[in-house]
């Protein structure tokens, strides 16, 4: 295995991790602050992907696509928050699971009705269709752009959370939700805002994933479940935990898929390696999660201390 392959796969892992972070950032705050289990976060990602693909296709501008994805996911996120989600905050988690599971069924079917079951393929925008030369390696500019956007969002959310008043409330809310409402803050507004921003980030992730993955009904759930793994590893409610965990999961998953079969081939017969390699690789992030939980049930970077 060459160094070039390793670096390219590391970057792929990073790019996947960054996408996971965009999904995990909003979701972990909704979990942490509102104690709400949102399975429909994957649907918001799917909505972003469709809105992005359609607006990009119609306008020819990828930027317009991204903006449309943000707007659509934000709008639908807010509508869901006001009509359904906000009524469930005080209920137990089972009701959250049930309601958002119903929403997932609905949105997946709605997308199938509107745009059919077959995937939509999205072109990489012209500007980013080339490659970047980096110390002698070449790497897709588009994937680089995804990494860059993800890092910008990570830095931005860190500043927002640690340097602003809203961020202070969010942090306080993640550690002690009762306290925040006792402070006289309009908790309903804060919740809606958080949910909306989380939805918007999911929409961005969907739109950016469009040219890399296929856009189709049900695309949100596999990535949602990996996002849940990220959140559990990072510690529920912790945005910085979600960031590190997303990168770890992205890299472990990507490298595992490429290198585990290769490594096994060195160790055992080819036929066994070919059978066991993909099996082990597909389990790697879950094994990682189980190991983390066995050692630290509250995750690697828990938001609540004490």
């Amino acid at each position, binding site marked *: 295995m060459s160094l070039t392959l390793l670096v390219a796969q590391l970057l792929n892992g990073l790019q996947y991790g960054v996408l996971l972070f965009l999904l995990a950032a909003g979701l972990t705050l909704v979990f942490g602050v509102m*104690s709400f289990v949102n399975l429909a976060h994957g649907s918001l990602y799917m909505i972003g992907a469709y809105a992005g693909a359609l607006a990009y296709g119609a306008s020819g501008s990828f930027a317009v696509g991204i903006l449309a994805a943000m707007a659509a996911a934000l709008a639908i996120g807010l509508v869901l928050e006001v009509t359904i989600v906000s009524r469930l905050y005080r209920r137990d988690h089972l*009701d959250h699971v049930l*309601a958002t599971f*119903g929403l*997932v069924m609905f949105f997946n*079917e709605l997308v199938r*009705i509107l745009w059919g079951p077959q995937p939509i393929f999205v072109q990489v925008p012209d500007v980013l269709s080339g490659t970047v030369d980096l110390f002698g390696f070449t790497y897709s500019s588009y994937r680089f752009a995804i990494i860059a956007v993800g890092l910008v969002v990570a830095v931005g959310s860190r500043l927002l959370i640690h340097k602003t008043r809203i961020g202070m409330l969010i942090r306080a809310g993640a550690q002690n939700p009762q306290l925040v409402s006792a402070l006289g803050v309009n908790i309903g507004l804060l919740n809606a805002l958080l949910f909306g921003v989380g939805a918007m980030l999911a929409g961005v992730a969907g739109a950016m994933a469009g040219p890399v993955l296929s856009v189709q009904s049900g695309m949100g759930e596999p990535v949602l479940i990996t996002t849940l793994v990220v959140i559990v590893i990072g510690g529920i409610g912790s945005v910085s935990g979600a960031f590190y965990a997303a990168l770890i999961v992205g890299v472990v998953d990507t490298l595992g898929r490429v290198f585990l079969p290769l490594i096994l081939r060195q160790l055992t017969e080819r036929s066994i390696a070919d*059978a066991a390699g*993909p099996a082990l690789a597909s389990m790697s992030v879950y094994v990682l999660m189980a190991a983390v939980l066995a050692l630290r049930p509250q995750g690697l970077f828990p938001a609540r201390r004490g």
Partner: protein
Amino acid sequence: MKTSSAFRPSTWIPLLLLGLLAIVPTVASGFDQPYWTAFFARILIYAVAASALNLALGYGGLVSFGHALFLGIGAYAVGLCAFHGIGSGWLHLLVAVAAAAAAALVIGAISLRTSGMAFIMITLAFAQMGYFLLVSLKHYGGDDGLSVGSTSRFGPFDLGSTSAVYYAAWLVLVAILWSMARVRVAPFGMALRGARQNVKRVDAIGLQAHHVRLVAFVLSGMACAVAGVLLANLNAFVSPSTLAWTVSGELIVMVVLGGIGTVFGPFLGALLFFVLEEVLKGFTEHWMAVFGPVVVLVALFGRRGIAGWLEALNRKRPSPGPPDIVAPGRA
């Protein structure tokens, strides 16, 4: 709570339905409609799985979003045994139940270290792990699944025909409903239900809530695997889609729709789920676009389920005492 006799609507209506289901294969062959038997067999099997989930979810308050895994383990126990030429139903059952117990023990031990949200996500993630594991095992069909060449044989009794599976599923369902009724008020069930309401107190009176929950989770997984064995025989086919995360969600929907924590709720929920699906499919292929919002409405408003509604009927009957205040459905 204790109204006059056992002849309350919440008891006799489910029992009547159960009795009527016993004659479905006879009626179906009389009308020459073999599809009816297969359709209701599926309901019986999912009713078994939902009842099994109810032990953990309803009695124990453990929101497992990964019970499809145990269903899949049961199904693949049959599929893999048959693939390797093992036809004994007893062995199928043994492999299914033992594998499910082992998996549930590991998953339960890890996920019960956490609670609430993390528990939901972890059970979901483990089920997903099983799903991707089976998808990647190309030797056993991978994504495409595996035909079950030889169905489970219990001595002279072979689960090769739809009606054989049907009667077996009916018996298993009756057995599990009876067990659930017994366990509910036995010390184990009381401790388990107590731990859902007030876990701290269960420890304070000298019972180990953690152990009680873990055992409930394992038993629940084992019973679910039995449903998987039946399912593999019914379809003569197994595929990773049995373990899809949506199946775990559907099992939860059945439990809540029917009445969480009640004896007959999961059975009633499974019945309504599939009948509703069938009816909606008659109108549109996009039935999920209607069913999804129904599930949302159930979460918002219908939390006591069909069994809760039947219990309300109990109270409407002329009774000497003052009307009962509706007890809180869940903590």
